[in-house]
């Protein structure tokens, strides 16, 4: 057992009643304290390093789980060696990242080059920890036969945590829309009644969806009759929201017809190729196509002609022309995404994305002077 695990286990044990409230309050107070502390202690470079570190660790967790060997004994958290390993990897990673941050920022200066040395040192620390952890005796929990390593049990909780955290950003979307429409409504700008409709629709849908969720249908209702809140939710969701989705989706039937009409012109060889392929595939999909070529023999000396029956020919184009072309695109895209992921993960890009200097506190820029009321 880890020396730390007993008090930790006690702290994170389920709590109820007053103990729960106190822990929640304590947790909140601790986080606020931590944030205030971070905000006061860290200056520009420290903040950037922290952001880079958080980005790196967030990615590292998901990456390691995938690439670490599965069912390896000494990597389990219940095992004393894993504490060493954890610490080693954390320290190593921190050193490596710090090295990268400082070196990319100050590439030309002597200090920059020197700080690059932190990268191999960090990696070395992790490796040493790894070997040390290996020597300790093993005990692994039951994983029900599924391939797993010590991080696997944490993947699902991590995904849930991210989902829950992400759910709290929904307020930003609300803020954006309410601000836009609220302003239109309050200032009676053109189209204010549309903004009013937006508010009514939003509030009604939210209210009745929740009421519906918390209302039980009484057992002795006539067939089809629902309590008010459920019936209203039915009208709003099944009667308006869903039909708006299906109707908008079905606009595509019109748009695809008009797009075909205007795009498939023999203006260039490329457009002509597209057109011919589209024609053949379209014909192959409907009875019209089968009807056009149903005369081609399926047996006898000219059986090979059945290859040109439109339904088969269309399928041949899809499977042997379209599929490899899509695959070629996919290979390129997968490599492109890999490179983008690497650049983002290691914070290699400067300036392209927002990885420039975050402003230190107390130096207000004029950036926000416009826009915000």
């Amino acid at each position, binding site marked *: 057992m880890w020396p730390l695990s007993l008090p930790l286990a006690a702290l994170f044990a389920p709590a109820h009643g007053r103990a729960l409230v106190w822990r929640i309050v304590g947790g909140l107070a601790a986080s606020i304290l931590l944030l205030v502390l971070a905000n006061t202690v860290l200056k520009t470079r420290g903040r950037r390093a922290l952001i880079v570190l958080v980005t790196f660790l967030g990615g590292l967790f998901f990456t390691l789980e995938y690439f670490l060997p599965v069912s390896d004994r000494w990597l389990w958290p219940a095992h004393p060696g894993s504490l060493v390993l954890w610490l080693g990897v954390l320290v190593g990673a921190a050193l490596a990242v710090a090295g990268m941050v400082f070196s990319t920022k100050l590439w030309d200066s002597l200090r920059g080059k020197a700080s690059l040395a932190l990268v191999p040192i960090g990696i070395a620390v992790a490796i040493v920890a790894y070997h040390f952890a290996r020597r300790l005796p093993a005990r692994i929990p039951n994983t029900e036969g599924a391939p797993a390593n010590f991080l696997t049990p944490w993947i699902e909780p991590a995904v849930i945590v991210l989902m829950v955290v992400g759910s709290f950003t929904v307020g930003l979307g609300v803020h954006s829309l309410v601000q836009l429409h609220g302003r239109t409504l309050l200032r009676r700008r053109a189209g204010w009644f549309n903004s009013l409709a937006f508010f009514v629709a939003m509030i009604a849908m939210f209210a009745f969806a929740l009421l519906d969720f918390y209302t039980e249908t009484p057992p002795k209702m006539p067939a089809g009759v629902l309590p008010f809140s459920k019936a209203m939710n039915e009208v709003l969701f099944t009667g308006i929201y869903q039909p708006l989705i299906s109707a908008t989706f079905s606009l595509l039937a019109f748009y695809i017809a008009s797009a075909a009409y205007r795009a498939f012109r023999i203006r260039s060889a490329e457009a002509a190729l597209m057109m011919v392929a589209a024609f053949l595939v379209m014909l192959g999909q409907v009875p019209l196509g089968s009807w056009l070529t149903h005369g081609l023999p399926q047996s006898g000396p000219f059986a090979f002609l059945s290859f040109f029956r439109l339904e088969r020919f269309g399928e041949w184009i899809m499977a042997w022309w379209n599929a490899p072309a899509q695959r070629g*695109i996919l290979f390129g895209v997968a490599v492109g995404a890999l490179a983008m992921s690497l650049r983002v993960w290691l914070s290699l890009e400067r300036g*392209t994305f927002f990885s420039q200097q975050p402003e230190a506190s107390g130096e207000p820029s004029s950036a926000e002077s416009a826009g915000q009321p």
Partner: protein
Amino acid sequence: MGKFDHANWLLTLLFAVMSAAIVASVLLAQRGRSMFVRRIPGLSAMEEAVGRATEMGRPIYFSPGLGSIDITTLQALSILTYLVRFAAQQATRIIVGTADPTLLPVAEESVREAYTSVGRQALYRAEDVRFVSGDQFAYALGSVGIMAREQTATNFYFGAFFAEALILTENGRAFGALQVAGCPDPTQIPFFIATCDYVVIGDEYYAASAYLTREPTLTGSLAGQDAVKALLIALILLGIGTVTVLAGHAQPHWLAKLFTLLGV
């Protein structure tokens, strides 16, 4: 569930080689080795597209697709920051409509920073980076509404697009806007080609920021990507050669073992 639940040692090694090629190439470029980037037709029109809006004195609409914070959408934001910097210098407005509340702050932050980086922070308007809707088709109609009411002269579509793509572009075209689109996923490309003036296909999407900015980090990365693609081609040719030679024969033991490791 499947064969690729976790990587085995061979796939891990391969991943390390691919990553190392890209990172090494980035570092080389950052140190000053010059990298070549070939012309990409759709992307050379980006400045012309912004210029059109400037000339007409109308805003630009930028849609980053339906994605949340993921790699595809981050690349879209990277293209967006380039466009914002370019448009800001000509005092042309860019309206961004997002479809994900978590993405919204990231988009706002990158747009604001883009304005700041060219010294035009006074032009930044918070209401120009909007949350349109989290629903795919409400997003489509809402975006069409923005194009119609703001009379955008140019529309950019970069990101993860699905069935809603054609609703956006067909209406944008009807409004007479110049349209440029790019999407890594091929399924919507045919409709972009049919309705947009310029289309960026497949991997060109990820090459876009390198092409536009010529930032050493990015051009270096592009060269690294080409090396990885060459490696993939070599692997495929090797595989094809092996199965062709062996067609109709039994696989030798060592090859069967290798193929298992590779997940064939």
